[in-house]
């Protein structure tokens, strides 16, 4: 018995004193010398994308036999709830792929390992990233990051250029032109609708709304972090948004209603550049053309001319011009296990190597755009499997990618990081307000007062 105890104690001492010496002498990053299993949460939930990410993981695991990665897809709307409960339960994953806004929200709540993200960014080289995408992930301290930008999309209003031309309408860029066109094309008796803006309590509504708010110079906070949501500018935006929502198809709507556009039932809708391949390629559009069950109903054939007839208005203007998009980031939850973080960092380094990176981006050409300048110019990247670069032209694609550099958000005001705005994004206060106004018929003043009270709780 005594001998066993002695052996045990000497082993303990050995690990405590001697091992760190070896570990310290390791090359870039901490080594992963013992078998470790980590969880990777991704917001990519489509089965084909999961399969692609799994291939990347399998490849990485062959090169790093000590590391096992479990891929867990989580719907983007469920991520805040899941990460908060995982933190409370002590079951945080080692790596998550989330919107940068959420990375800031979780980082502010102390859920993320800032050193790991900053370390990995510096290892890859901060200067290689588009500065704008890094800025979206920056913490209150310059040069320290909550997450690492990985890929992003730009949103805008996609519209039927042929219909607009026929009707003699201007492209939907200014508030006035958008509303005029929405009213013109709203023909509910023919089952056709003018526009689609998000009215369901989901992130999509926030994304549509933000661009309008930005175009009217309305924010949630001033640069000192004072809540100024209930301002005359913001009220104008809410009123305008509620008016636009009247030209929506009936009831609460969200991104799923892109189906209506692909079936020729809608003149304009908000969407990210993820729609590009659906417009251009038949096999991608198939999921939105579900006519097989009710052939006499809405199901429509793929319209090969739709892509020619569709244009993107990526800027909205009222008192100023505003573009909007979302950068997705990789972040390391703070779970206190250095070995797991080291394994996750190693995997992340692999994800930024050109081959892995381009494989990832090619899952959704147009929708997933690189945040490293050298990848954007990479020939293999531009030769995407769906032929989008060929279809839309390199120039258009480059314009979209460079849009990532100038994304505006409520959470950066005149260069100052306002973390509370990211928490408000994460908790979906604005979508709830929009829902109350457009679906439950609550008055605008009352709903805005409600939203401001909820926002104040989160500060």
């Amino acid at each position, binding site marked *: 018995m005594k001998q066993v105890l002695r052996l045990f104690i000497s082993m303990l001492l050995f690990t405590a004193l001697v091992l760190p010496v070896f570990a310290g002498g390791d090359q870039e990053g901490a080594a992963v010398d013992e078998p470790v299993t980590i969880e990777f949460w991704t917001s990519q939930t489509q089965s084909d994308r999961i399969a692609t990410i799994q291939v990347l993981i399998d490849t990485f695991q062959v090169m790093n036999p000590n590391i096992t990665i479990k891929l867990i897809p989580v719907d983007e709307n469920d991520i805040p709830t899941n990460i908060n409960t995982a933190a*409370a339960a002590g079951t945080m994953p080692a790596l998550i792929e989330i919107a940068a806004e959420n990375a800031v929200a979780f980082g502010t709540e102390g859920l993320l390992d800032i050193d790991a993200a900053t370390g990995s960014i510096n290892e890859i080289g901060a200067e290689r990233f588009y500065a704008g995408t890094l800025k979206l992930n920056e913490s209150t301290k310059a040069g320290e990051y909550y997450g690492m930008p990985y890929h992003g999309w730009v949103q805008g209003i996609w519209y039927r250029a042929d219909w607009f031309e026929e009707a003699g309408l201007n492209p939907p860029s200014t508030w006035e032109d958008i509303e005029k066109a929405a009213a013109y094309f709203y023909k509910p008796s023919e089952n056709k609708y003018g526009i689609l803006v998000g009215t369901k309590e989901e992130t999509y509504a926030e994304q549509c709304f933000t661009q309008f708010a930005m175009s009217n110079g309305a924010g949630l906070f001033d640069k000192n972090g004072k809540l100024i949501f209930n301002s005359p500018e913001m009220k104008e935006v809410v009123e305008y948004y509620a008016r636009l929502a009247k030209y929506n*198809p009936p*009831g*609460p*709507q969200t991104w799923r209603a892109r189906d209506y556009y692909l079936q020729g039932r809608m003149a304009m809708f908000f969407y990210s550049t993820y729609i590009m391949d659906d417009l251009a390629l038949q096999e991608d559009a198939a999921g939105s053309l579900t006519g097989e069950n*009710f052939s*006499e109903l809405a199901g429509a054939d793929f319209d090969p001319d739709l892509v020619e007839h569709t244009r993107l208005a990526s800027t909205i203007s009222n008192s100023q011009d505003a573009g909007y998009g979302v950068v997705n980031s990789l972040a390391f939850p703070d779970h206190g296990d250095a070995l797991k973080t080291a394994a996750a960092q190693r995997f992340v380094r692999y994800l930024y190597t050109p081959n892995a990176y381009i494989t990832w981006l090619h899952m959704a050409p147009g929708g997933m755009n690189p945040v490293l300048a050298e990848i954007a110019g990479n020939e293999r990247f531009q030769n995407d499997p769906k032929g989008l670069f060929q279809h839309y032209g390199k120039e258009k694609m480059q314009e979209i990618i460079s849009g990532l550099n100038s994304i505006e958000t409520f959470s950066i005001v005149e260069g100052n990081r306002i973390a509370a705005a990211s928490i408000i994004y994460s908790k979906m206060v604005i979508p709830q307000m929009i829902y109350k106004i457009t679906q439950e018929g609550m008055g605008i003043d009352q709903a805005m007062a409600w939203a401001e009270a*909820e926002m104040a*709780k*989160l500060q």
Partner: protein
Amino acid sequence: MIQTETTLASRFTLRQREQIFGWALILPAVVIILSMILYPIIYNMYLSFFDVNFHGKNTYLGLENHKEVALDPFFWKAVGTTVLYVVFTTVGTTLLGLIVAMAMNKRFPLRWLVRSLILFPYVAPVISVVFAWQFLFDPVQGIVMDLMVEKLGIFSERFNLIGSPKSAVWIAVTFSIWKNFPFAYLMFLSRLQAIDKNMYEAADIDGANGWAKFRYITLPEVYFVMGALVLLRIIWNFNKFEEIYLLTTNVKVLSVYTYFKAFIGTMEMGQGSALVVIQFLLLIGFILIYVKRVLKW
């Protein structure tokens, strides 16, 4: 070994030993119930007195959460929606179940096939039928609006039955009746089959009409089955979550409202717990009155 047995035998009487054996048998069940049901309930009650903070310490608030919930107009709206949902689904499933059971109690060809097909909505997985219903009611592509507007011309314009908060509750009620009436039907049918046919014959001889036979024979015979069915349906539907939430998130009955309060947006766990406690008290109070008055226990 023999010695222990004798001491055990001498220390306890046969009756006591049987009691010990009985306790030993139900012990696993008791442990599971205590740990999986009672503990969460008590912990939930405990939480309802706190401002729950995920990443730090909880702050004791006393009855603040309960007060805030009770003064919240959205809460009373949720109570109203719940009562409406429970009343209509309970009446609907019970009546429909009774009518169908009485029809299925008559003889006709292929009755065995029809009897089993009726069970289909009840046994089908909720998630699959929910998606089918959502598709039926989609305002732009669904068959319901196509029929109502294009084919029959009942309405001049399409609208979102399943999405608008005002109409969605009625879709949820209809869905629940459709999904759950087979259970009532099954219970009624088995009771109806056990009624003595001689009573109906005697009533026929006395010249009773169909209504009188139903009123004075069938109804008293199924009374307690009906009482139990109503009670069960009220308990189940008062706490119903998945059928409603999956179909449409717009029907804020208490369970859905609690979910939004606790897990969406500002995630107010303490208030969520307080809500559940109040919901629990409402239900317990109701059950006590019901059992005493209607089931006459």
